[in-house]
């Protein structure tokens, strides 16, 4: 058995098309997820009222259910319950955004809670308006604390995008399955796919690791 690199090179266009769709899936669902995460984070920070309960249930449910189940649920049940046509692509986007939003809500909340209370209190004591206390004092510090966790989430969303192949979205894993089904070169193609994902994910997690170490050193 030899490692047939020719198969990979011959089918590189298909694989790259898959990478492209993977990136689109990740970026779109991260953008929508950020909005959802902000609203849910607001709800959890308010700590009372209707929005708090909705946000709590949303975060708990999304974190407690496998992404696979969420994706299948939305793909099969979404069109029936909402009485719309839902392509596999939009089903994947919806489920990935919902998932990213729930995790982002917790990341945002943890970042804001990690800023020492004294910072906001000091700003208010100095007569800084509540709005500017948030914009100038609390949020910049919170954002810096969130960066490692946020990048960790990006890598998670990249990994999860592979699941979209199960509902027929033509991303990287899907393209590889199709091509390897035709050529029977499973080993070569999935090795190539693994390398592609590694190239997407590894730099991000390396950066997050370095950044986190820097943060720890700074706060000490």
């Amino acid at each position, binding site marked *: 058995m030899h490692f047939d690199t020719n198969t990979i090179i011959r089918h590189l266009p298909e694989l790259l098309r898959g990478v492209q769709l993977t990136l689109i899936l990740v970026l779109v669902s991260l953008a929508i997820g950020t909005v959802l995460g902000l609203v849910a984070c607001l709800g959890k920070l308010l700590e009372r*009222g*209707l929005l708090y309960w*909705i946000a709590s249930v949303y975060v708990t449910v999304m974190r407690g259910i496998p992404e*696979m*189940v969420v994706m299948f649920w939305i793909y099969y049940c979404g069109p029936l319950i909402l009485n719309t046509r839902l392509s596999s692509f939009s089903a994947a986007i919806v489920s990935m955004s919902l998932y990213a939003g729930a995790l982002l809500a917790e990341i945002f909340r943890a970042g804001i809670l990690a800023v020492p209370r004294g910072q906001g209190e000091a700003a208010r004591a100095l007569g800084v308006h509540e709005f500017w206390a948030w914009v100038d004092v609390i949020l910049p510090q919170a954002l810096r604390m969130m960066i490692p966790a946020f990048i960790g989430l990006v890598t998670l969303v990249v990994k999860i995008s592979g699941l979209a192949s199960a509902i027929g979205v033509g991303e990287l*894993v899907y393209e590889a399955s199709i091509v390897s089904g035709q050529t029977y070169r*499973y*080993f070569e193609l999935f090795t190539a796919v693994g390398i592609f994902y590694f190239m997407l994910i590894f730099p991000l997690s390396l950066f997050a690791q370095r950044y986190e170490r820097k943060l720890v050193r700074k706060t000490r």
Partner: protein
Amino acid sequence: MANTGSASSAVFARVWRRLDWTSAISFVAGLAIVYGIYATVEWKFVATLDFHILIEYWQPLLRGAIVTLLITGAALVVGLSVGVIIAILLQLPIGPLRWLIVAYVELWRNTPLIVQLFWVHFGLPVITGISTTALESGCLALTLQSSAYLADIARAGIQAVPRGQWQAARALGLPTWSLWLEIILPQALKIMIPPFANLALSFLNGSALLGLLQVGELMTVATKISDYTFKPIEIMTAVGALYLLLNLMVGRLARWLEIATRIPR
């Protein structure tokens, strides 16, 4: 007329001052979301859902849940042993070995489980010549990934054991096996409990992926039943609830374990 106007504006001003802003924002935003959901959902269809089939199929669903727990548990236990061994080997000052271990850990941590699963199931048999069943390759892929994650967690745990413990053990002249088994590892394992619990939860959810290979765990059972009965919504909702329940149970267990093993100060 002017009098009533000023009176009502005074009442308004008092209400305005008394208004609890966080509750008000929370209520209005929540109401908007509830209304949005209410307006988009096709309630006539939801009313036709028939959850009675769950009573008919509770046995296979329960069996699937048990298989899910067994697979996840096995992958975590084997992964923990391999991970701890890897973390101990990482302490040895052998350059090439360290590089090999780091490469192994990073490779499995930085690729999606679905790719690993297909690689193990479809790719590996081509080079090894050993054809594995779906269950075997599913367990193998989960174990390989969990061993990589746990190696990292164990490394951090070992590093978190205070230096004084090592120095004291060495000063007492304890043999290496005693240093590891009686001094370092018990403490490191306790430190590892919270990250281990997080990993356990993410693997419990990740194991749903094995349903793609028809392994026989909860997700496989769910897709089979919903294909057979044409009731995907009822089954998938129930399976989601079942996974949520398993998650909450495992989370509770982890918290109990964390408290039970806490070193009294």
